[in-house]
């Protein structure tokens, strides 16, 4: 049982997941986002390998309209 902080919300998984799997589960297209794990950016080509474990803090960021 792992607890992850994602974009300020607590979420739970029954086991550690890759960034890629996380995004897939959340229905987020990985093409358009940036992911920070514990304040460190996860390069896109690492999404499939980078594991998210209990207690990790994740930020998933995307572009929106702005001036």
């Amino acid at each position: 049982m792992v607890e992850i902080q994602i974009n300020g919300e607590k979420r739970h998984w029954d086991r550690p997941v890759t960034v890629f799997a996380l995004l897939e589960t959340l229905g987020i297209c990985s093409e358009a986002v940036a992911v920070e794990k514990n304040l460190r950016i996860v390069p896109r080509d690492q999404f499939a390998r980078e594991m998210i474990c209990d207690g990790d803090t994740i930020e998933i960021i995307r572009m929106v309209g702005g001036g």
Partner: protein
Amino acid sequence: MKRKMNAEGPLIIAGRAFGSRLLLGTGKFSSPQVMKDALNASGAEIVTVALRRVELDNAQDTLLNAVDISRYLLLPNTSGARNAEEAVRLARLAKAAGCEPWVKLEITPDPHYLLPDPVETLKAAEILVKEGFTVLPYINADPVLAKRLEDAGTATVMPLGSPIGSNRGVKTRELIEIIIEKAGVPVIVDAGLGAPSHAAEAMEMGADAVLVNTAVAVAGDPIAMARAFKKGVEAGRDAFVAGLGIQRKRAEASSPLTGFLR
């Protein structure tokens, strides 16, 4: 002013040429379709975007579906950052999100007037330039700060005309004139331009470009307003290049001064 040398040429930022001197923001549009059509009508080649958290329960990306990325240079801003550290973090995230390493650096500690912090902006600019970013800093109309940012390697300076979204025009004219006179990098007037006449005025002063968002996005007809700003910017630039007459106190007759039947 060396800047006037290639007056007739394109806008060149960090060695990259742009045909349009109007940068458009993508905030506050009523719909992606309206934004898309406005971008189209504006002729802009550089469009700014912000970075925010994905809403976990509403994850589909509407903005990028609307914008044809290949046609525009997406310029991510650091809006929301209150200090250099936050701004740097946003710039890196933008790059990781797939943007080119360009950033509109804005650091606004006060959410009320959204005015930029000169000290934090210079600090962040020095870091980001070292990391290879092309930095376009949003600043108050401060000629000394502008010079220091240029010396720190920023690609442009973006002094404000008046507070963001105020639509009040170029209220800082005296100081922006000095910035333009001294600048060795393109000067892009940002914030507060509420009408095409404001954009034209900035260009007539010798600004290299202007950035507009609110005035277009919230106009009664954003597409028509985008077109209006396109013309206003071109009018101002053409006039600057053509050479404006000086202002006179006296009148000067436009008809022959021979008097009545002489």
